[in-house]
């Protein structure tokens, strides 16, 4: 080995050593740093809804919703959520008056059994609505629950052959203008566009979209958007709550 090569090797070794030191955890404990965000607060996930004009986000997801505080519905497992179970839980069980027609105001209270539950008009800070964080943020029951959510889609013109696209954790049912639009049964994970409805019509004016999500243990959330007749994401909609 000639001198110049030897010098080059020494320099390279020093550079590597410095580099490795730069990557080492401070304090010399040998443990990797822990990246943790413990700021789990309601405001991180939700903003109070306003009356300002609001369209779906750039990917078409609807973020403005009225959400009812969780209804107790004990389930130790999500595997029981068959179609029959879901229909019984949502369609054949009345939890509060006019549950399939009410357009709630922010702060409205309904009585469900022994529970007094409040409607919250929120805008999700994410593409999805994290129901689990909605519950924990309000210090409500987070497991073994049913959530009801309502939003209104305003259309300037009638739109035929649109499709509702939903992902939910866990199972859910959805109604557009009072008609059943979708059922997502089973132990669902929330996946965008998991469920796609049959072709629907968004009428000119206001269209009420209503959903119910049931969850036993674990995370709970949903995401919703629409596709037009050409399978393009619908963004040119106005989302209101009243």
């Amino acid at each position, binding site marked *: 080995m000639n001198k110049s090569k030897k010098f080059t090797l020494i320099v390279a070794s020093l550079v590597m050593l410095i580099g490795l030191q730069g990557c080492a955890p401070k304090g010399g404990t040998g443990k990797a740093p822990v990246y943790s965000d413990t700021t789990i607060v309601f405001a991180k996930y939700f903003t109070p809804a306003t009356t300002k004009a609001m369209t779906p986000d750039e990917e078409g997801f609807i973020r403005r919703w009225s959400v009812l505080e969780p209804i107790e519905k004990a389930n130790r497992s999500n595997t029981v959520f*068959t179609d029959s179970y879901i229909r019984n839980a949502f369609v054949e069980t009345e939890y509060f008056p006019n549950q399939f027609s009410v357009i709630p105001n922010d702060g409205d209270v309904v009585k469900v059994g022994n529970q007094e539950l409040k409607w919250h008009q929120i805008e999700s800070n994410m593409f999805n609505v994290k129901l689990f964080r909605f519950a924990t943020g309000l210090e409500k029951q987070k497991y073994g629950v049913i959530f009801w959510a309502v939003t209104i889609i305003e259309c300037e013109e009638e739109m035929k052959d649109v499709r509702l696209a939903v992902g939910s954790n866990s199972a859910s049912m959805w109604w557009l203008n009072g008609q059943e639009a979708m059922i997502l049964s089973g132990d669902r994970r929330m996946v965008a566009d998991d469920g*796609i409805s049959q*072709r629907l019509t968004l009428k000119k004016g206001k269209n009420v979209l209503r959903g119910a999500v049931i969850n036993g243990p674990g995370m709970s959330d949903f995401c919703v958007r629409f596709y037009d007749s050409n399978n393009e994401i619908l963004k040119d909609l106005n989302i209101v709550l009243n």
Partner: protein
Amino acid sequence: MKSRNIVMGLSALLALSFAQKADAQVGEPYIHDPSTIMECDGKYYTFGTGGGGLISEDGWTWNGGAVRPGGGAAPDAIKIGDRYLVAYSTTGGGLGGGHRGTVVTMWNKTLDPNSPDFEYTEPIQVAASLNDEDCDAIDAGLLMGPDGRLWCTYGTYFGFIRVIELDPATGARMEGCRDIDIAIDCEATTMIYRDGYYYLLGTHGTCCDGVNSTYNIVVGRSKQPTGPFIDNVGRDMLKGGGKMVLAAGYRMTGAGHFGLYEVCEGVQKMSCHFEADFDRGGRSVLAIRPLLWKNGWPVAGEPFFEGTYMIESERRGYALELAVDFVRMQGGMRGFGGFGGRGAAAPNPVIEEQKLSDVIGTWPEGNINIRIGDYMFRPHQKWTITAVPEAGGYLGGLYYKIVIEGTNRALAATAAKDVITVPEFTGADEQLWRIDQLTDGTFRIMPKKVPGCDEELVLYSAGDSFATLDKFDMNSDNSKWNFRQR
């Protein structure tokens, strides 16, 4: 993708033992050296050696009746504008010891011999060979390149395969064009073009030996129509190279004389003959197979086999299923390892799959909706697919009924452009399904008729979990499905 193709391949092999093939054309599909299939006024045509040819109204049932004068050998055809150019050789090659040959072209406005416009122009000589030349001027193949230039390959095993350029306006040889040697050891060559490559397909092996014919179709490719055409291991076709496209199989030997028919983007069919169909007394028959593309190379797809399959969405890998309650099987998790824990010391009995009888009582009796669910090989996901010969067919296939295994509950298209199952298969058009293997090895599943709709729609994954009907789009996995038996 590769693993899925392997699965499909294995599935097809396994199916051989109990499934019926539906790959042979019906009628009187007897032909040798079929020209590239042409569509004319709703009918399909192919010409063969010796003159004449076959006609089909649906692409499945073929009978004689096509008219090509001049006799000779191994024609090809191409549509240019609103006319058909037919090339053939006036001689029969070197079987008699001589190698004198002549390739000619002629035009016709229609291929329908009953049309008042049916009239061939006078044949024009475009290539020739002398008695002991290193070429037989027979077996013409035509290609219109992406630049509008028209090419004709010809030749046999005896010498070189050659290419010349023709005038697409007249069908005559371009002035000053010289013959270029591009391959040896081939017969029945033709070129196709795809993604920047010219592919030269030729037939290797021994011709005209019935059940003992070793004819097989191989391919090489080049950036230029004049070669060099190189195979998958780098051999020039001038040195005998060639990657296999289709050989013998399924009780047929002697695959030869490739032709490409593009149904639409993503749906390609190859035509050829098998020199001996063991189920037809060893006669030479027309065959139509899906043409697949793997790593830039064409390869023949498999015939579709009747059987019971899970129909897996290419979009997510879930299975097409009845929208019924999921019925849990007995048993649960037996711990998380083999070293102690709950149930670890217990025996490991074989668990039987869930049976139809375990669940059918939970299903509604009328129509049941369709969806796509977790792939679990359960009875509501098992579809028995059976050909319905009386319903006719399409290019390269028969229509099928698709029913839940052990029942007559049939998949059906609806007027709302959705899919459901009906309790009983009736044979209605909306319950008949066309199955095309796509160029990527997946499948397109299309109802014969959507009630009240003139559009061609296919089974479509509108979302991960919902199936409907929509327009076929080769660039979307929503349009694609796989058939799996395990």
